[in-house]
Structures are given as C-alpha cells and as structure tokens.
C-alpha cells in the first residue's frame, strides 16, 4: 500500500512537470496522433496491392492494428518515460541515490514516471476496435473477450520483461542511449501477424522470443481464432519471464559498482 501511494505521488509530480511545458505536450500529442493515422494509412495502402496477408484480410488486420496500438500506447504511457529516465540515471549517478532509499528499487525504476502524451492513441485504438465491433468483425462472445483480456495482460507483461532486460543492459554498459529505439524496432516485428514468418522463425516468436504474444495472439483471441491453450501458455510464459527478468535485475544491481568502483 505504501509502495502504491509513493508511485501515485511520483506520477502526480511527473504530470505536473509535463504541464509546465504545455506547448511541447500538445505538440507531442499531435505527433502521436499523426503517427497513429500514418500507421492506419499504411495498412490501407498495403491492401491496395494485396487481398490478404497470411490469411488475415483487411478488416482483421485493422483489429490487429487496434490491438497493437492499444498495447503500444500503454507501453508508451507507463514504461517509455522510465526507459528514457533510466539512461540518464545511470549516466548521472542518480541511480546510486535511489538504491540507498528504503523502497523497492525495481518498482521505482519501472514506474517512476508516466507520460500522458499517448492517451489519444488509446482512445483512437479503442475507437477503431469499437468500430470493428459495430461492423460485426469482432463478435460479442464472452469467452473471446476473456481470452483477449488475458492476452493483453500477457502482452504487457512480456513488454515489461523486455523493459527489464533493457535497463539491465543500461546498467551493465553504463552508456546506452536510444534504448527506446531498440524497443520500438522490436515492436515493428509485431505489426504484422506472425503467420507471415517462415516456420522456424515463427517457432522462435512463439517461444524463446515471444513476439507473437505482443499483438497477434490477443488480436486472434478477440477474433475468436486463438485456442485457449495458446493464450494461457503465453500467460504462463509471461509470468516466468517477469520472475526471471526480475531476478536478472537483482543480479545486475548486485554487481553494479557505480562510477567509483
């Protein structure tokens, strides 16, 4: 409870901070909106030359895009600002200060900041999914929705694993700018359904490097195309991943020698 209230206070502080620079906040929202629109246009343009991609027609691809954007926006709001902050913290030595505080360092490092710039994207993504629901592409089925919920949680947990790995890397290498670019590059793997990849790569994406669970599996679940075994095994994978990556983080911090070491 104490931890949660500390995080809430930190969030409040970052929101107040970002409101100081209102013009750039508005600019960022506009930029993100265009990002969404261009992403959408990409699929529309894609389907001028293609009828379907690996069995996904254009309507189903729009559902995939909606799910992708939902996950992407959530990562942007919760994790991205912390990833940026981590790079600075290691460089400036502020990490040492944080480690001496009587609070779970992983929690603070992961959720210290929040960025509301992508709230618009969540709204637009939800609108896109709602529209596909209205058109009957997404069928009202409680089982599907439940699997979709599990799928989204799995997806977010896996992104969190990726985040933990990246901040460990930042601590180890001491200097690693543009980690967010790295993360975004991996996101581009999830923009299209995993069925497009050759068999061996698809197997990797379903297991060791679970790109499939970022967007393809939740979208399939929403469309009623995913088996519950796949969804739940992804969930188990994500739990194991988070536990494993947290352990890695603790090891990294143990071996961290700061600038003086």
């Amino acid at each position: 409870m104490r931890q949660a209230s500390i995080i809430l206070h930190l969030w409040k502080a970052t929101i107040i901070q970002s409101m100081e620079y209102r013009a750039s906040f508005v600019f960022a929202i506009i930029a993100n909106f265009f990002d969404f629109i261009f992403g959408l246009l990409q699929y529309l343009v894609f389907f001028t030359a293609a009828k379907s991609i690996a069995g996904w027609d254009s309507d189903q691809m729009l559902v995939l895009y909606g799910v992708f954007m939902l996950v992407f926006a959530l990562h942007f709001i919760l994790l991205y600002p912390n990833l940026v902050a981590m790079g600075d913290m290691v460089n400036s030595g502020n990490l040492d200060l944080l480690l001496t505080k009587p609070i779970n360092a992983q929690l603070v490092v992961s959720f210290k900041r929040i960025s509301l710039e992508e709230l618009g994207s969540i709204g637009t993504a939800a609108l896109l999914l709602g529209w596909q629901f209205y058109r009957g592409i997404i069928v009202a089925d409680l089982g599907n929705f439940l699997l979709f919920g599990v799928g989204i949680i799995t997806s977010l947990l896996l992104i969190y694993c990726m985040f933990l790995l990246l901040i460990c890397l930042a601590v180890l290498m001491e200097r690693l700018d543009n980690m967010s670019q790295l993360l975004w590059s991996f996101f581009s793997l999830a923009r299209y359904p995993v069925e497009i990849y050759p068999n061996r790569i698809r197997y990797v994406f379903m297991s060791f490097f679970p790109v499939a669970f970022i967007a393809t599996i939740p979208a399939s679940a929403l469309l009623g195309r995913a088996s519950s075994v796949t969804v739940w095994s992804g969930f188990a994978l994500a739990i194991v991943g988070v536990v494993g990556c947290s352990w890695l983080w603790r090891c990294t911090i143990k071996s961290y020698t700061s600038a003086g070491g």
Partner: protein
Amino acid sequence: MAMFKADGKFAVLIAYFKIILTYRAMMLIHAIRLLLLPLVLASAWLSIEKTASNPYSDSDYLLYYLLVPVIMNLTDSRVVFKFSQAVKDGSLNRELLKPFPPLMSYLLESLANNALQLLYLVPFTLVFWLFVRDRVLLGHLKPSLLLFFVVAIIIGTLARLVVSGSIALLSFWIEDVTTLNLILNGGIWALLGGMIVPVATFPENIRHIAELLPYRYMLSFPIEIFSGRLSNSEIYIGFATATFWIILFAIIMHIIWKSGLKTYTAYGG
C-alpha cells in the same frame, strides 16, 4: 590532395568518421532499425494473396526489399535532427564563425555516417542474397542499367537532402521541427516513397501521384531501375522530375537560409 587540404573538407570528413566510430552501440541500434523493418515487410509481401492488378512476383518483392535498407541508408539525411539541435543549443554559432560553409559540415557528417553504415549493410545484403539467390532474377543487369542506378541514388540523396534541409532550416522559427518532419518526411515518405508498398504496385491513380511527388525518387526509383522494370524513357522522365524537385527545394532552402540567418539571435550565447 592539396586541393582537399586547402579548405579542410577532407579533414573534416575524416573527423566525422572518427566521431561516429566512437558510438558503436548507436551504430548497432541503427543497424537493427535499418534492417528489421524491411525484413518484416518482405515477409509480409511474400505471404500475401495478390490483387489481380499487382505486377510484382515474389522474386520482385525479394529483390526490392533486399535493396531497401541500402538505398534507404544511402539517401538518408539526419540534418533535421542535427540542425534543429544546433539552433536550440546555440552550437550553430560556432559553425557560423568557422571559415567554412556552415551547412557543408552537416552535409559531410551525413555523408560520413551513411558511408560507414555500408560496412555492414553491403555484407548483410550479400549474405541475405546468397540465401535467396535462386529466387531472385538478376539476368537483366547491364552496365548501362547500373550506371542509371548509381545516378538515381545520387539524385535521390540530393532530393532527400534538400527536402530535409528545408524542413531543418525552419528551426529558425519553429521550436520543434520533428513533428513537421515526421509528417512531411517520415510519414508521406514511407507511404508514397515505396517503403511500405513498392510504388510500381500501387493502383494507377495513386501511382501517378507518387511519381509526381519527390518521395519516390528517394527510395523506390533506384530499385525500380535496378529491377529492370523501367524503360529508358521512363527513367529519363524520372530523372527530370527529381531534378525539378531538387532545384525547387534548393531555391527554397537558399531563401529560408538567407532570411532565417537575419532572424537568428543565438540564444546559446
């Protein structure tokens, strides 16, 4: 050599090579960015069900996305980010004081950066080509075609440079040009330049628009020449269109630079 020493351009180029090499981790990230998306798109295009009017075969798509990272990198220009940063933090002042054309150093840095990326891009492309070589047809390649290809890359680089340069120079008035750049240079470029969809596979009406805009010449055009799908007259028309845009934007850039310098007050001190 004496010529290079006299005005130091060569030395500056070498210096930028060294600066870039110190950021090897950045290069790796850049490499992933350059290579991953084309690979994803190639996989996507190879697994589509084609529309009837789509002229590309699997071989065309493979060749196309094999070349996309190379062309994308060669025509790339980071002047937007570098220049707006220089205006913001005042390091432009130093550039203005040097006995050296101020915009030239941005051009040279861009050149050095793009040339270094070839260190891994060329081997990667060759290795990747070895994997798919029995599926890519290259029998049509002639020396004249390769010459056109090289000229098209140079023209594409210039086109990208003047368009990005014009946006970059707006930093004199606009605090944050990256949003504008995202729209004019990133988004439309990806859509109509041939990143997501090869321009030749667009429906007729969209293709005509894409061929008139400068973006096609920054990415798709050199690859289309390489694939041997363009006739000589089509190539000449392409060159003419791109040259028109280059001259137009060069003039715009010149005007912006002249009036921008007058308003520039160097808040870096």
